[in-house]
């Protein structure tokens, strides 16, 4: 079993907006997670089902642990869409706090205003 991450590289990059290698890698992980989610859930179900024979459950555990790391949803990290930064990303806008501030001040985010109360 090969564990090469390059297997997840798409033939043609279909991202628009800001891209760097970290964004591309994260996107690859997201694609892999989406593709392998049913299988992972099936194995998870088998592991958790105490009515199945122990051997089957152990085998399922083994298979799940042998799946590629990229298929694991915990590998996915929310990154800023406009700068690729991975810290303090505001989920509602998918923007990093700095990008959010700049775009909000420029009026690119509908309805977002400077608040004072």
């Amino acid at each position: 079993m090969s564990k090469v991450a390059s297997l997840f590289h798409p033939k043609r990059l279909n991202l628009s907006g800001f891209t760097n290698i970290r964004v591309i890698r994260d996107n690859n992980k997201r694609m892999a997670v989406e593709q392998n989610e049913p299988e992972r859930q099936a194995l998870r179900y088998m592991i958790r089902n105490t009515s199945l024979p122990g051997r089957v459950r152990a085998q399922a555990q083994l298979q799940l642990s042998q799946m590629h790391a990229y298929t694991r949803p915990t590998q996915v990290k929310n990154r800023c869409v406009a700068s690729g930064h991975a810290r303090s990303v505001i989920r509602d806008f998918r923007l990093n706090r700095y990008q959010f501030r700049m775009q909000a001040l420029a009026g690119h985010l509908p309805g977002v205003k400077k608040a004072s109360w």
Partner: protein
Amino acid sequence: MSQTRLLDLVKTQCRIFSLNFNPQRLRLGNKVLRQRLRGPALASWYPKQVVSFQDLQNTYKPLGLTTFDEAEDDREEAIQIAKLRGKGRPKKKRTAAESRSAKKKK
């Protein structure tokens, strides 16, 4: 009402609403099956490229029209200049022997 009657009631209830009938409360892992699939939501985080300039070129080429991708032309020109100056990309080492010899030369 007796225990069996109640169990029967729950059983029919489960059958009608297609629930899992599990009076012994065994761990059947059904909560995994009840979970939503998160994949589609995760996969749609980054904006996807819908059309590229290349697509435009490909559509116009069969019609006999010429298109100019200035950014691409600039890039190719820069590569040519770099090659002339001897600053181009080194040749890809295909075999182990080639790469080893390259290292030795150093």
